[in-house]
C-alpha cells in the first residue's frame, strides 16, 4: 500500500525531470537563486519542517517537491552548484526505483483488476461492480467511512488539547515523551496489547476491569447469579420473564418447595443445610437441589443440600404482590397472616441478576469503536508532537497583545491560537485521513475471527481476497485501485498545500 500511495508523487518526479531540461537555457542570467534557496529553508522551519519530514521522509520525493516549483518560479536565474545534467544523473536511480516499485505496480494492478480470479479471462469492470454488490465488501466500505469520519477528527482534537496543555506544565517533555511512546510500538504489537485490553473477562481485560470496578462501587450485585429452576416438566417452579414462579397456585397452609440448580455446590459450601419449613401460614424452602458428586433425589430436600439464604420471596395474587419476605439461613420462608386464597410464590429476577461483567468490546457491535480507540492511543501522541511544533512557531506577541487587551484564555485559544494553527491542524487531519483509509494491522489483530466480517476494512479485505484464502487477485486488484482512488483526493490536496507553502 505504501508504494501505491506514493503514486501521485511520481508525476512530481517526472515534472522535475522535465523541469530540469529548460533549466540550462536560463542558467546564465540571474543571481537571484541563492536567496531563493534561503527562502526555502525559511519556510521549512517550524511547523512545516515536521510536517514535511513526517509526510515526506522519502529523499527522492522531497527533492522532487522542492525542485518542482523552480520552473514555476519563472524568472531566469543563475545556478550555483552542479549542472542540471548532473541532477538528472543523480535522480535517475530514484526515478528508476519509483518506476519499478510505484508506477509499474499501479498500472499492472489496473490491468489485473480487469481480469478474473485465474487471470486469463477478461471481465471488464465486473470486479468493480462486485465491490458494490457484495454485502461483505459494502460493510468494509461502511467501516472505512466510520473510520475516516471519526478517527482523524478525534486524533487531531486530542493532539491539539495535549499540545496546548503541555505547553503550560512543568514536565512537558516527559509528558510528551510518554504520549509519543505508543508510536515506537509497532501497530502489530499495539494490536496484541489491545486484544488483551478488550478481553471480556475482567480478570484479564483492563477495559472491563476498570468498568466493572467503577460499576461495583455504585451498585454491588447480591444474590445468586446463575441459579435457575431445573428444566423439566416435574419441576415445581418455572422461569417466567426472568422470575422464578411456582407452577401451580398455592394456598396458605401448604409448604412450597422451590428447588434451584445452576450453582456450584462448592459456592454455597458453608451454608446451612436446607430444612423443610414448619407448617402454618404459607411457608416453604428455597434450596440448591444439587449434590456434590451427583445423586440425591430430584426436587426433594436431601440431607446435605444447602438452603439459599437471603432470597426475596413474594406472594402474588391477581398480579399484585400481597406480601414479601426473605429466606432464613436454612432457606425457609414464612408468610404470616395471609388471607386465605390462592397465591403464586415468586422469586423476583433481582435475586438472580448476573454480576456486571463489563462490555463485550470484541463483539460485533463495539468492535469498530474499540479498534478506533486503539488507533487513537497510537496516533494521538504523534498529532500532539506535530501540533506542538506548530504552536511553538506562533508569534507570541499576538497572544500577548490579546491578553493585554483583556481576552480570556478561551478567547485567546479560540480566536488566535486555533486560527494561527489551522494550517498545521489541516496537515495533521489530512495525513490522518490518508492513514486511516489504509488501516489494516489493528483490525487484523484485534478483531477475533468471528467478528472480522463486522470489523473488516477495505485494505484488509483486499489482502484477504487476494492472498488470505480467497485467491482472487483480480478482485484484490480492483479493491486496491478503489482504495487508491479514495486516497488520491487527499494526496493531491496535501501536495498542493506543500507547493503553496513553498512559494
Amino acid at each position: 500500500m505504501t508504494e501505491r500511495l506514493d503514486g501521485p508523487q511520481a508525476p512530481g518526479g517526472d515534472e522535475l525531470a522535465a523541469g530540469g531540461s529548460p533549466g540550462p537555457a536560463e542558467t546564465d542570467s540571474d543571481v537571484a537563486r541563492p536567496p531563493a534557496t534561503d527562502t526555502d529553508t525559511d519556510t521549512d522551519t517550524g511547523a512545516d519542517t515536521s510536517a514535511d519530514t513526517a509526510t515526506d521522509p522519502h529523499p527522492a520525493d522531497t527533492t522532487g517537491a522542492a525542485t518542482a516549483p523552480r520552473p514555476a518560479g519563472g524568472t531566469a536565474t543563475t545556478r550555483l552548484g552542479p549542472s542540471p545534467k548532473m541532477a538528472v544523473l543523480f535522480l535517475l536511480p530514484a526515478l528508476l526505483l519509483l518506476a519499478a516499485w510505484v508506477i509499474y505496480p499501479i498500472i499492472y494492478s489496473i490491468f489485473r483488476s480487469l481480469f478474473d480470479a485465474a487471470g486469463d479471462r477478461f471481465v471488464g469492470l465486473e470486479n468493480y461492480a462486485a465491490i458494490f454488490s457484495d454485502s461483505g465488501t459494502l460493510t468494509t466500505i461502511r467501516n472505512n467511512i466510520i473510520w475516516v469520519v471519526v478517527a482523524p477528527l478525534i486524533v487531531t482534537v486530542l493532539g491539539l488539547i495535549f499540545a496546548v496543555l503541555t505547553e503550560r506544565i512543568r514536565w512537558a517533555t516527559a509528558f510528551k515523551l510518554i504520549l509519543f511512546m505508543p508510536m515506537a510500538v509497532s501497530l502489530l504489537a499495539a494490536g496484541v496489547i489491545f486484544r488483551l485490553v478488550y478481553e471480556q473477562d475482567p480478570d484479564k481485560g483492563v477495559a472491563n476491569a476498570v468498568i466493572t470496578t467503577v460499576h461495583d462501587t455504585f451498585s454491588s450485585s447480591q444474590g445468586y447469579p446463575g441459579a435457575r429452576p431445573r428444566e423439566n416438566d416435574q419441576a415445581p417452579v418455572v422461569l417466567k420473564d426472568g422470575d422464578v414462579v411456582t407452577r401451580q397456585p398455592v394456598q396458605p397452609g401448604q409448604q412450597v418447595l422451590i428447588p434451584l440448580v445452576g450453582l456450584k455446590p462448592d459456592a454455597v459450601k458453608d451454608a446451612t443445610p436446607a430444612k423443610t419449613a414448619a407448617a402454618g401460614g404459607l411457608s416453604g424452602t428455597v434450596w440448591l437441589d444439587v449434590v456434590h458428586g451427583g445423586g440425591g433425589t430430584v426436587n426433594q430436600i436431601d440431607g446435605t443440600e444447602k438452603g439459599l439464604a437471603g432470597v426475596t420471596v413474594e406472594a402474588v395474587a391477581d398480579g399484585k404482590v400481597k406480601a414479601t419476605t426473605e429466606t432464613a439461613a436454612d432457606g425457609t420462608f414464612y408468610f404470616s397472616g395471609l388471607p386465605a386464597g390462592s397465591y403464586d410464590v415468586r422469586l423476583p429476577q433481582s435475586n438472580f441478576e448476573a454480576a456486571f461483567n463489563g462490555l463485550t468490546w470484541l463483539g460485533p457491535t463495539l468492535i469498530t469503536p474499540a479498534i478506533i480507540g486503539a488507533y487513537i492511543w497510537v496516533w494521538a501522541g504523534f498529532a500532539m508532537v506535530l501540533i506542538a511544533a506548530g504552536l511553538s512557531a506562533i508569534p507570541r506577541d499576538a497572544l500577548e497583545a490579546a491578553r493585554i487587551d483583556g481576552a480570556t484564555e478561551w478567547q485567546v485559544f479560540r480566536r488566535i491560537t486555533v486560527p494561527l494553527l489551522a494550517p498545521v491542524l489541516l496537515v495533521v487531519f489530512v495525513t490522518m485521513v490518508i492513514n486511516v483509509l489504509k488501516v489494516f494491522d489493528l483490525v487484523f489483530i484485534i478483531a477475533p475471527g468471528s467478528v472480522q466480517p463486522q470489523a473488516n476494512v477495505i485494505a484488509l479485505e483486499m489482502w484477504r481476497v487476494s492472498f488470505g484464502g480467497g485467491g482472487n487477485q483480480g478482485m484484490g486488484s480492483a479493491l486496491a485501485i478503489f482504495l487508491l482512488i479514495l486516497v488520491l483526493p487527499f494526496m493531491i490536496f496535501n501536495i498542493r498545500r506543500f507547493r503553496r507553502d513553498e512559494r
Partner: protein
Amino acid sequence: MRKLPPLQIGVAAALALAAAACSSSPSEPATTGGGTASSEAKPLAGVTVEVAAKWTGDEQASFEKVLKAFEEKTGAKVTYASTGEDTGAYLGPRIQGGNPPDVAILPQPGLVQQYADQNALKPLSPEVLSQIDQNYTPYWKELGSAGGKVYGVLVKAAHKSLIWYRQSAFDDAGVQEATTWDDLIGKTAQTLADSGTAPFALCAASGWTLTDLFENVYLSSAGPENYDKLAKHEIPWTDPSVTTALEKMAQIFGKKDFMLGGSSGALQTDFPTCVTQVYGQKKAAMVIEADFVAASVGQSGAQVGEEAKIMAFPKAGDTAPVVLGGDVGVVMKDSKGAQALLEFLASKEGGEVWAKQPGYLSPNRNVSPDNYPNELTKKLAETIISSGESVRYDMSDLAPSAFGGTDGKGEWKHLQDFLRNPKDIKGIQEKLEADAAKAYTK
C-alpha cells in the same frame, strides 16, 4: 504521513505472500512422462532420497527414526528437509526451479490435486498401490488421486472425532461419558449445567473448530455417502440432512448455560484458549476438538489420561463418526528410492516403526494398536480401525479454501453466525449454499 515501519512490514509480508502465490501458480513443464518405476525395491545401496515435510522438533525426530529404519532395510540414504508451516510456499519455488524433493508430505489432500494439475507429481508405483490396497480403505485411495491416477497416500492422521473432558468436573457433577448425542446433550451436559459448571468451552473465534464439530455431527447423522456428496458439493447445503445436523448443533448453541460465557463469550475465544478454560481455569467441563489438544492440555498443567480424558464423539445418528485430518505423502521425482520410501511408509512394517514413537497416529488399518506407546493413542487407533469404511477426511479441508478455510468467509463465517443466532437454520443454509456454489464453480 504515509510511511510507517509497521505498515512497511505488513506490505513486505504481503509482497512475500504475493511472490509465493505467484511462484506457485504457473505450471511446471513435465520432465518425464508418467512411467512407473517397477524395478526391485531393494537393495538401494548408494541411492539418495530427499523427503520434505512440515514437521519439526519431536515430530521430526520421530519421523527420522522411521527414515532410519528404511535406510537400514534398503541401504538408501535419506535426507530430511523441513518445509516450515507453509508447505506450499516451500515447495512452489522448488517445483518451479525444477528441483523438487523426491518425496513430499503434504498437509492437505487439496494440494495433491493442485500439484497434479501442475504436473509436479508422479503416479505411485504398483508396489505402493498394492500396499495401499492392503492397508487402506478405498476412500483413502480416492483421496490421494487426481484425474484417475493415484498420487498420494495418507501417512499420518489426526483424529478429530473426540471430546476432551475434565475428570474432576465429571466427578463433581456425577456424570459419565456419553455414547449418543442425545445422552451427551440431555444427560451429561444438562447435569453439568445444573451443577453450575459450563459443559462446553467452544473456541468459536477459530472458525475451523466449528467446522470440525459440524463434520462430526453431519457424518454421524447423515452417513458417509451424504458426507462425500456434500464434500464434493453434489448435494446442496440446503439439503434436509444438513438441516438435521444444524438442528443438533443448535441444541448446544441455543442454550447459553451450555457454553462458557454464552455464545458471545464463545465467539471471542480463540483456539487453544478454550482448552485453557477447561484445564487451566477449570471453568468448563468439555472441549470438542482433535487429538492435538493434548499439547495445550499439557501447557495448562493437566495430565493426559488422568485429569484430561477423552471420549469418542458420540453417535448423533447411525454412524459412529471418525473424522481424520492428516498428511499425504507424494512422489515428486521419479526415482526408485522415492517410490520405495513411500511404499515403506504405506506398509504395515513402516507404520509400526512409526507407531512406537509418541505423537503419531496411523491411518493404516493393519498397524496394530498394541504398538502405540500410550493408552490414549491406542484407543484412538482402535476407533479408526473399528470404523473401517466410514472413516472420513476433514470436509472443510477438502473444500476450496475460499469456502472451507478462510477467516470471515464461507463456512467459517456462517457457522459463527449460526452460533450467534441458532434460530435461523434455513437462512444459514441458504447463505452456506450461496457461498459454496461460488467457491466450487471456480
